């Protein structure tokens, strides 16, 4: 059996890396663009000099001037100060499904048959890529049971926004948009389930949980009326409790003429187990970069696969990818479409990687992902329950948790004034990436949301729990140690954090920083 290894002497790279500007020496450069051939040069002369005066750049941009090795070195250093999921025990980022991202997929996106194709090429010249789109759509159709997908949205939030746009188009087509101006969501659903409908012009009604942590069914029924455009809900919500009323909620919303959108950001544990269709939803989305094995890129690139029942397919963004029995083609013929949410047909690198991953998994493999994820999570809970000072949301309600759990350090906060941020900073000293606490508002005090998806070994789970135990023990013995952590990561504890909210002090660029902080 593999050994459980807590990294007690961990040290992340800390290069004290200067800003790239501080590496600058006038006259240096990292790369030389190809020169224009003499024949062209002699024919056209200095074209830039002939530009209209108003369009000519007068002062060169203040970019750094750095030789190639030093640029490479600088960004390798910065990468080493970053904890990617492929190199760490990233059970940390609950709700984010930090699974292994196969290297094969990165090899494939470098293939000239992908890297060097232009999105405006004629359909005949990109049949391979269109087939990949078409076949990946089949995968998400099977996983959800829904009829038609758009792979255009560039992330989960973007898919949720697309849902809000489709709902708006649907009610507009029915002449009811003015009346149906409310969208219901739940507090444990992702903030985008509130923010996206609001951006699309809807009033948002937020439902709080019942005593078991599920969205309050009676409250939803009471909120549903002739003004309801739709409900946006996650299931399970971010605390890992499966909502047993899902279909009843759908019925209640349908009964008043509203639509039902299922945010499936947390789909990983339900592949082949439970689907949007069986619960009666009209729409759903998958975070392809979470559930289907593609890397998160430090917040993108990503893809939000957005699916609908066939009655709503006419509102999807254009174009969709279709097949006429001989060739694949792009269908722009959708007069009732919401238009577009992104240029071209979506984040094709993510689609290519997700397609590849899905082909390696097959139906059985997807199901295995789901089963091992829930098993891992319950094993993790079993270990975490034994740690003093750690509790979890709606503990003791008798409901078996699914793919993730929101833990709480409430007791540590009360006893030692040690909260989520302190725990997080100190756990970094053991090589653990920053854990996901919770979106705001923190309904569960001092939260930590963990999702040990299928990529992690039993020993990874044990290591993680052990680190929590060690750090929770440190909190009891020496809270000051946590208050000043981290000591072994790329950055020390922030001070004067209020500067980040102060227009006189904040700086989101080097130029602004120099001006505001008197740097020469």
């Amino acid at each position, binding site marked *: 059996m593999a050994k459980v290894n807590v990294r007690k002497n961990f040290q992340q790279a800390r290069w004290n890396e200067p800003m*790239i500007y501080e590496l600058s020496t006038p006259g240096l*450069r*990292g*790369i030389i*663009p190809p*020169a224009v051939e003499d024949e062209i040069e002699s*024919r056209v002369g200095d074209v830039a000099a002939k*530009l*209209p005066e*108003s369009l000519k*750049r007068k002062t060169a941009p203040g970019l*750094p001037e750095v030789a*190639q090795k030093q640029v490479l070195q600088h*960004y390798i250093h910065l*990468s080493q100060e970053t*904890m*990617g*999921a492929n190199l760490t025990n990233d059970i940390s980022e609950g709700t984010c499904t930090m*699974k292994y991202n196969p290297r094969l997929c*990165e090899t*494939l996106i470098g293939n*000239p*048959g*992908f890297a*060097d194709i*232009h999105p*405006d*090429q004629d359909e005949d*010249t*990109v049949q391979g890529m269109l087939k990949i789109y078409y076949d990946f759509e089949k*995968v998400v159709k099977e996983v959800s049971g829904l009829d038609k997908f758009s792979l255009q949205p*560039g*992330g989960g939030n973007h898919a949720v926004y697309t849902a809000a746009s489709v709902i708006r188009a649907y009610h507009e087509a029915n002449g009811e948009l003015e009346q149906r101006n409310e969208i219901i969501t739940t507090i444990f659903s992702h*903030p*985008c389930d509130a*923010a*996206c*409908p609001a951006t699309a012009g809807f009033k948002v009604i937020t439902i709080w949980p019942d005593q078991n942590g599920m969205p309050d069914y009676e409250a939803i029924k009471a909120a549903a009326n002739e003004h309801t455009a739709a409900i946006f809900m996650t299931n399970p919500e971010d605390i890992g409790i499966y909502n047993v009323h899902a279909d009843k909620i759908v019925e209640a919303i349908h009964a008043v003429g509203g639509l039902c959108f299922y945010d499936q950001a947390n789909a990983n544990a339900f592949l*082949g187990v439970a689907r949007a269709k069986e*619960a009666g939803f009209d729409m759903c989305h998958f975070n392809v*970069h979470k559930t289907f094995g593609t890397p998160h*890129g430090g917040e993108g690139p990503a893809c939000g696969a957005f699916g609908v029942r066939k009655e709503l397919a006419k509102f999807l963004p254009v174009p969709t990818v279709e097949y006429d029995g001989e060739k694949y083609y792009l269908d722009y013929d959708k007069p009732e479409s919401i*238009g577009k949410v992104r240029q071209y047909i979506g984040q*094709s690198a*993510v689609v290519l990687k997700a*397609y590849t991953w899905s*082909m390696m998994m097959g139906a*059985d493999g997807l*199901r295995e992902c789901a089963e*091992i994820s829930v098993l891992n999570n*319950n094993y993790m809970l079993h270990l975490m329950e034994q740690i003093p000072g750690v509790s979890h949301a709606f503990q003791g309600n008798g409901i078996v948790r699914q793919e993730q759990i929101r833990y709480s350090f409430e007791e540590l906060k009360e006893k030692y004034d040690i909260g989520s941020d302190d725990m997080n900073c100190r756990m*970094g000293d053991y090589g653990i990436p920053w854990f996901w606490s919770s979106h705001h508002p923190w309904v569960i005090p001092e939260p930590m949301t963990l999702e040990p998806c299928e990529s992690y070994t*039993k020993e990874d789970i044990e290591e993680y729990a052990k680190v929590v135990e060690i750090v929770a023990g440190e909190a009891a013995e020496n809270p000051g140690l946590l208050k000043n952590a981290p000591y072994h990561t*790329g*950055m020390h*504890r922030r001070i004067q954090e209020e500067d*980040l909210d102060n*227009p006189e002090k904040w700086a989101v660029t080097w130029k*602004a920083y120099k*001006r505001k902080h008197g740097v020469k």
Partner: protein
Amino acid sequence: MSRKQFVHPYIPNSEPAVKKQMLEAIGMESVEEIYKGIPEHLRFKGTMELPEPIVSEYRCQRHVEGLLAKNKNAKENICFLGGGTWNHYVPSVVDTIMERDEFLTCYVGEAYTDHGKFQALFESSSMLADLTGFEACNTPTYDWANAIAIACRMAERMTGRKEILVAGNMDPDRLLVVRNYCKPEMTVTKVGYNKETGCMDLEDLRRKLSADTASVYFENPIYVGALEVNAAEICRLAHEAGATAMVGVDPTSLGILEAPAVYGADYAVGDLQPLGLHMSYGAGLGGFICTKDEKEFLGEYPSLLFGVCKTQQDGEYGFGEVYYERTSYASREKGKDFIGTTTALHGIAAAVYMALMGPQGFQELGEGILKRVAYVKEELVKIPGISLPVTGCSYCDFMVDFNKTGKTVKEINRALLEYDIIGGKDMSREFPEYGQSALYSVTEVHTKEDLQALFGALKAICV
């Protein structure tokens, strides 16, 4: 094939003995006991109809490579497509950094464990701001279109005005994104343009500017392949009407073209793709929005903004989120629009690219492109039947008129494939007023021989 026959390399705890130990520890017989939390009638009883898995990584690679081989690519063909995704050289250093698992597979970690990610994105914003002449820039948006759309709503909130005027010569696909995003808060009205110069019709702009105008959006370089010679005047007219001015730029042009902040723009938006991202069938996109560093601007960004903060270690650059309360992460529906996972990694790629290029690189890149384009234009008009429908200087993209050849762009492009050339974008659907015209794009990757191959092929096809 039964899944019991192997342990999937990506699912270690599916090993039967390990699985059994874990089940025993939690006092369960099978995983089904966990799924009992899902009511029976909500369970999926069928089997997903998916192809048999290709469990060997090698076989899977062969399978996908086989599909990709069906695509014609710009390595084996000479590609003249641009207009939103461009065929620029991607330095190997950029690819090396993009492939680092540290950046590639990280996510929403704080600066304590992801210090490098914060610094790289801070530097990216800083260098984009250098190019555009501003002091603020966000972390990336989905794409250029999304950047315009967001900036429109920022302008609406800042001015309290409800109309956006957009140049009628902008990319229609970008406009579709903007229209959807601005609903229902704003109306989007097109301003006319001069078909010969490609530039905005200033008289029409004057007519349409009003007390309702939140912002005027134009592109420079213009989508139809010209430079907006009236950029400063458009900004001045917008300001005169109490509106803001927004320009969409190709960031690679800003080594030679004036910085938008200098000619009076309040917002400069554009795409990161030309800054070191492969074309990848449109996967290289990522947008940016640059503004002044003033609270009335910065306070309206929905995006994450990374800023410098002091730490306990004197002299260390710490990082954190600037004015986080703005965001929907902090304030749900009360935040500015919405924020989520976008294209952060592309921001890092752009940082590496801009650092490599420096001011000299951008200047030489720009000058070289202007020259190649000027040369191509001169040569193309020598071919009978071919003309240039838009006058003036072009950067990368320019229109070619094939109306007098008697052939459609579609026919010409099909014929060009026989010469291993991927022709320009057929504009007859988006801009029917130009008839059978195509949008060609020439960058630093095109050699004299590439260009001459195009002339030779077009002569053979059109004459």
